[in-house]
């Protein structure tokens, strides 16, 4: 269904780019050309060559292998973040939007309060409380992103609540839960899907910035942001390290953004 649209170039290019990076990540989970953490003093700072397509770093580790694994970690963290944020956000948004009233007011003001904090700062507070590690990053970012989904879903539910088809479902005696999740929910997809996609992008960037700042994943885990901060010190000795890591992030973000753009155009 997604590929049916003939004239949606954004969507197509986006899917291709994302597929390339996804493939890299998925393959990275089961197979990498070298062990991403194996050091080799004889092969330090190798520029891209046949045996190391993306070169090696200061410890002689193969950068392609590291990029593959790092992309996998970044992907995993971002997906989980989107999942947590969207799951809670959708439930909160659906309940508040559908029922309205003072609970809606209260939860939305709480939402405003959370939104007023930059999400990185909020995540930082979480990390300080919970400690480092990728699961804590997921939790911190997931919570920080809840309001963005809740807000979108809430406004959709508030809009659909007054529509005739909802009234007629209610008149047929359908329960609130059924109306919310069977009747209204599918109608919010054109808005929810692009939001999920943008949310994924934000999660990638947030994870990268957190790891770059040293509050994200910790070794032996490796993520794109972590590698970026590592490569910075060897910018002159091994510029390809930074270049290829950065390029992977750019490709991922660009691909997913294009998908988001394409979905939005489709949704009208």
């Amino acid at each position, binding site marked *: 269904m997604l590929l049916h649209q003939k004239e949606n170039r954004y969507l197509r290019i986006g899917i291709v780019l994302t597929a390339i990076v996804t493939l890299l990540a998925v393959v990275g989970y089961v197979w990498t050309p070298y062990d991403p953490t194996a050091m080799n003093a004889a092969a330090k700072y190798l520029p891209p060559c046949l045996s190391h397509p993306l070169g090696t770093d200061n410890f002689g580790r193969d950068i392609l292998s590291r990029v593959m694994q790092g992309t996998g970690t970044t992907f995993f963290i971002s997906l989980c973040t989107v999942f947590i944020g969207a799951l809670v956000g959708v439930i909160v948004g659906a309940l508040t939007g559908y029922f309205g009233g003072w609970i809606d007011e209260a939860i939305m003001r709480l939402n405003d309060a959370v939104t007023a904090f930059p999400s990185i700062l909020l995540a930082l507070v979480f990390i300080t409380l919970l400690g480092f590690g990728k699961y804590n990053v997921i939790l911190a970012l997931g919570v920080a992103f809840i309001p963005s989904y809740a807000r979108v879903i809430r406004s959709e539910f508030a809009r659909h609540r007054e529509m*005739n*088809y909802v*009234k007629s*479902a209610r*008149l*047929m005696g*359908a329960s609130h839960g059924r109306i919310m999740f069977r009747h209204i929910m599918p109608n919010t997809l054109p808005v929810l899907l692009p939001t999920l996609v943008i949310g994924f992008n934000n999660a990638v960037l947030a994870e990268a910035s957190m790891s770059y700042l040293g509050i994200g994943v910790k070794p032996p885990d490796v993520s794109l942001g972590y590698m970026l901060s590592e490569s910075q010190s060897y910018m002159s000795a091994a510029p390809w390290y930074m270049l290829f890591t950065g390029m992977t992030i750019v490709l991922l973000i660009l691909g997913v953004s294009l998908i988001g753009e394409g979905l939005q155009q489709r949704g009208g």
Partner: protein
Amino acid sequence: MLEIRDLHVQFRDSDHECVRGINLTVGDGEIVGLVGESGSGKTVTAMMVSGLLKSDRVITHGDIILDGCQLLSAGDETLQKIQGRDICVVFQEPMSAMNPVMRIGPQVEECLRVHTDLSKAERRERALQALRDVELNNVEEIYRKYPHELSGGMLQRVMIAAAILPNPKLLLADEPTTALDVTIQAQILELLKRLNRERGMSVLFISHNLNVVRKLCTRVAVMEKGQIVEDGATDQVFYHPQAPYTQKLIAAIPTRSKRRGE
């Protein structure tokens, strides 16, 4: 059957009553028309009967009795049993009354799913039968379609099919033909008449179109500014209107002779 006694309705955020003490009865198997201009309170009356307006939005006074059951003071559970089984509603705009992303079949079956424990196949069979009852062809195909794939007239038939499926005692039709063109309108009216005859289902038909009401209804109530100014047999009301408002309304019906005179 349905009895409305001295009903007053006022929205909580407004300072005047939009329904000011109306009395109306719909007998068994009767088709009663409720006419009046926009804002005369006819839709609010219908919404009160169907239970769409709850006490969190309106202040009410008076009684609505369906077969001896007090609707205004009934609890949510009783109401949920009555809504969608004893009272069913057909809306004005069929396009907006259908869920755009749900297939026709499940939407028609909705009330069966809520009120009965029929199996999936039985529900489907009943829904297909209801679609046939409203004179639709290729029901199997329609069952699988989405609302945007059907025309307005077909959708209105689908709405009626959904409404008659649980065999309600009362069908509430809120301007069901206003959004349709004249030929389709006539067909829908015939359909309602036939269903009323065959099933003995009472109909409360709300409209501002006097010609439609005259063709369909056995009795007519005329509403003006929240009050019923005239109530009687259709012929009585049309040929010997008593209230000045009714006289004005009837004088405003365009006729052939008048058009020629212009």
